[in-house]
């Protein structure tokens, strides 16, 4: 990883993710009338097996959606199981949640957080991405062969709600070829 991006490119990518995350958190904060704690964006290159390992955690619910455009890849939204009821209540779902309402909540959160993250990120770099609707994680996704890449660039941001167990992460995964496009775009931004 350390050789893939130089210091300036990494700085730029982190700042673009910061801005994207800020807009996503603002969208959610206004809905639930609370303040979201933001993380420092994590940017790493992972192998297919490391990527696969994300799904092995039993502590999170997952959604997955793909995007097309100048860059291609997937966006995952993870939500800590422990904080699900809290967020459900804040978003006016009847609690305790049943299986259907829990799925709805997950999809709504993915739309709010992942949607804003990817769109703001993409628009800052004119990547013109189109995001598919999120789908709930299925057992099928635990199988490593369902991933198309050998390695991928992961950009992860984390949203937390103070004094609650709510914790959600949005992970943007870029396919190998797209990483080069991203780097070109970053360079343009830096030279500009």
């Amino acid at each position, binding site marked *: 990883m350390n050789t893939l991006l130089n210091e*300036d490119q990494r*700085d*730029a990518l*982190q*700042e*673009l993710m*910061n*801005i994207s*995350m*800020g*807009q996503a*958190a*603002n969208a959610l*904060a*206004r809905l639930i009338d609370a*303040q*979201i704690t*933001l993380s*420092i964006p994590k940017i790493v290159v992972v192998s297919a097996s490391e990527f696969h390992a994300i799904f092995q955690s039993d502590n999170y619910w997952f959604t997955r959606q793909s995007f097309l455009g100048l860059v291609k890849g997937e966006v995952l939204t993870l939500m800590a199981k422990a904080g699900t009821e809290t967020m459900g209540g804040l978003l006016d779902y009847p609690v305790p949640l049943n299986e259907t309402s829990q799925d709805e909540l997950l999809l709504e959160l993915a739309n709010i957080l992942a949607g804003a993250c990817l769109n703001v990120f993409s628009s*800052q770099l004119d990547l013109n991405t189109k995001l598919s609707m999120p789908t709930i994680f299925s057992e099928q996704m635990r199988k490593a062969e369902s991933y198309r890449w050998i390695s991928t660039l992961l950009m992860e941001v984390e949203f937390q709600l103070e004094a609650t167990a709510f914790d959600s992460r949005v992970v943007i995964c870029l396919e190998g070829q797209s990483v080069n496009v991203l780097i070109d775009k970053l360079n343009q*931004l*830096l030279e*500009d």
Partner: protein
Amino acid sequence: MPIPVTIADDSMLSRKTIRKALPPDWDIDLTEACNGKEALAAVAAGKADVLFLDLQMPELDGFDVLRELHDHHAKTVVIVISADIQPEAQKKVAMLGAFRFLQKPLHADQLHETLTELGLI
């Protein structure tokens, strides 16, 4: 006399974005700071009549800088430029005496409008 202006942001890209958004004919003496400590040092050195301040920074964050300036009744005009744009953050910086809150990504016309409103240009 050029106006002493400081940009405080830990991101190189952000500092550059702000620098490029400044009115080209604005007569200023520009200083850049990479964290809150450097921002306060710039203020102490008289290099920040106007301070463009990021909120999330290492060492000392933007809120800490505002608190410090507030406590010392500094005459620095602070314009916060932040990626965290939640209502709570905006409320907090207003209470700590920042004059304006601008969102990232920063748009040059918004910055010019703000500077005009504040009578700085």
